[in-house]
């Protein structure tokens, strides 16, 4: 993928985000009829509703509202939250690092657990290791996120090693204020106690969030490795006596990593969706928790912001996936005749 192709892809994603803003605007502002009435509930007086309508600009034409809204978003303003009575952007800024940390931790777990297991399963195809990792991956895929979360909570309440909720123990007095990521900041500040505490806090939510991904990525890695094992070029190397471990770990794995990367990009949306459940169960102070409260209290500015930020997460993740795939596959990167 050349630089221009990457730029083109980024531009395409920007269009996707724009489309998303229209869709969510339609859903949040136009479908319900009177957002102000919904926000205030049936007990509010007509005057209160009218005042809110005017305050929020709901009385103006939809197009004008939309243009205003997008203008605000581009300047970094998502409006005011009815829930917290603060600008939505500062709410988001406050909640974002927690979610980011959780998601990154999840991705690391997926990478560290799923890919090696998938490779092992393919290498010893139909052995006990293959069968057990397939079982694990099946369970990962079919177990609902909330069931994983609840089972992990039961587990934690039994052993008392992992905290049930939250992100950091308040009595440590540690504030992640460098990158916002507690795991990173604690190391930067040399606070090993805080690092251990953060790790204990994030471990169970991370595991809950990664369960589905681990199952899926393990499955894809395995089938991709098996598929590649049948290709002629593997046979070529085998017929020249190149050792099996070199063929597997060097030649096959690099080619086989393309499929799980692509799937990871596509499944990123459902990972964010699952974060809503995990953050709720573990009281993780991220944007999913915030978004859920916003949805339940019909705080449309906050809802729209959360949806747009989730979309942004997805888009950035997929750009990174595209970049990684292009780095792996020279056909997307160099020379003539390259195309997708």
């Amino acid at each position: 993928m050349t630089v221009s192709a990457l730029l083109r892809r980024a531009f395409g994603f920007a269009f996707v985000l724009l489309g998303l803003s229209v869709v969510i605007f339609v859903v949040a502002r136009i479908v319900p009829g009177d957002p102000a009435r919904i926000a205030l509930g049936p007990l509010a007086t007509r005057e209160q509703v009218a005042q809110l309508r005017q305050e929020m600009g709901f009385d103006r034409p939809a197009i004008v509202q939309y243009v205003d809204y997008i203008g605000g978003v581009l300047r970094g303003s998502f409006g005011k939250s009815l829930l917290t009575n603060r600008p939505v952007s500062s709410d988001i800024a406050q909640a974002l690092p927690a979610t980011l940390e959780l998601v990154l931790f999840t991705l690391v777990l997926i990478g560290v657990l799923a890919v090696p297991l998938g490779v092992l399963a393919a290498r010893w195809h139909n052995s006990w290791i293959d069968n057990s990792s397939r079982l694990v991956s099946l369970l990962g895929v079919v177990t609902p996120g909330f069931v994983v979360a609840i089972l992990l909570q039961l587990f934690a309440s039994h052993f008392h090693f992992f905290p049930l909720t939250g992100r950091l123990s308040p009595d440590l007095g540690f504030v992640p204020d460098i990158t916002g990521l507690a795991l990173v900041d604690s190391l930067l500040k040399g606070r090993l106690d805080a690092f251990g505490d953060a790790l204990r806090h994030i471990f169970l939510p991370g595991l809950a969030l990664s369960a589905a991904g681990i199952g899926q990525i393990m499955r894809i890695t395995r089938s991709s490795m098996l598929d590649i094992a049948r290709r002629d070029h593997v046979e070529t190397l085998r017929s020249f006596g190149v050792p099996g471990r070199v063929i597997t770990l060097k030649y096959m794995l690099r080619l086989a990593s393309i499929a799980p990367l692509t799937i990871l990009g596509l499944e990123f949306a459902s990972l964010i969706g699952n974060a809503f459940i995990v953050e709720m169960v573990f009281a993780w102070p991220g944007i999913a928790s915030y978004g859920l409260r916003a949805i339940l209290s019909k705080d449309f500015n906050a809802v729209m912001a959360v949806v747009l930020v989730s979309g942004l997460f997805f888009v950035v993740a997929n750009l990174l996936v595209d970049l990684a795939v292009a780095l792996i596959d020279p056909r997307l990167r160099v020379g003539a005749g390259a195309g997708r």
Partner: protein
Amino acid sequence: MSAANDALVPAAADELSNFARARRRFLGNPAAVIGVLIVISIIAAAVLAPHIAPYPNHAGSFVDFRSRHQAPTLLHLLGTDNVGRDILSRVLFGYRVSLLLVIGVLGIAVPLGVVLGLLAGYFGGRVDTAIMWLTNVMLAVPPLVMALAIAAVLTPNLVNSMIAVTAVWWTWHCRLVYRVVKSVVAEDFVEAARVAGASHLHILFREILPNCTAAISVKTTLDAGFVILFGASLSFLGLGVQPPTPDLGTMVSAGAQFLPEKWWEAVMPGLAVLYAILGFNLLGDGLRDMLDVEI
């Protein structure tokens, strides 16, 4: 697969018809057979719930405070909830709601996605750009978040859950069919039909669609499980089917308040959801191997 590998495939088994071979492959796969049995048991449970549930009246807003929070016993195999209702009975009725959701969602989302995917893949050009752009927009939002946003706007109930889930679900089928169509269109028989004078309608629905049905049916089977999960997740978060209708997700979230002591109140309905997803998943995987399609 290359010619070299083709030569390695034993020439036997030619005398078997494709169907017989596929059936043997399916029945030779214990996981797939278990999947079928699970799915049949769930459908039976949903259909026969009023007749087989030990306490059919517990499905509604029944209250019996004397027998609340009872751990699983022979009398209540899965225990009772915080108002003394039998969890097994409510799970059986819960499957009714789940299957209704599946039928409602897939009944609309699959045909919609399939037709849009067919049109985009076959006609290409602007039709392609427009449909696939919309698909990509919808795919960029976490489906659960989109459904939550929609569910938040509408009053939470079964029909609105269906609408919310359907609104995001068609995209998956659209993209799947689009991909299959793109590869089918490159085959010579599509042009051959055109040369023979066939209409677009004929080519789309008689030549191309039959080549997509295997993929669609596998995907739909797998989806049935995930729609159940999705509906349960929505109601777990409080935006799905509302009490007292017995819904698996609602039961889990209600039971979760009594963790860890009264674990069965959350875990049992949760496992019921798992059971359903497992069944449809095994069945779908078995179909995939049998029909030899990639999803």
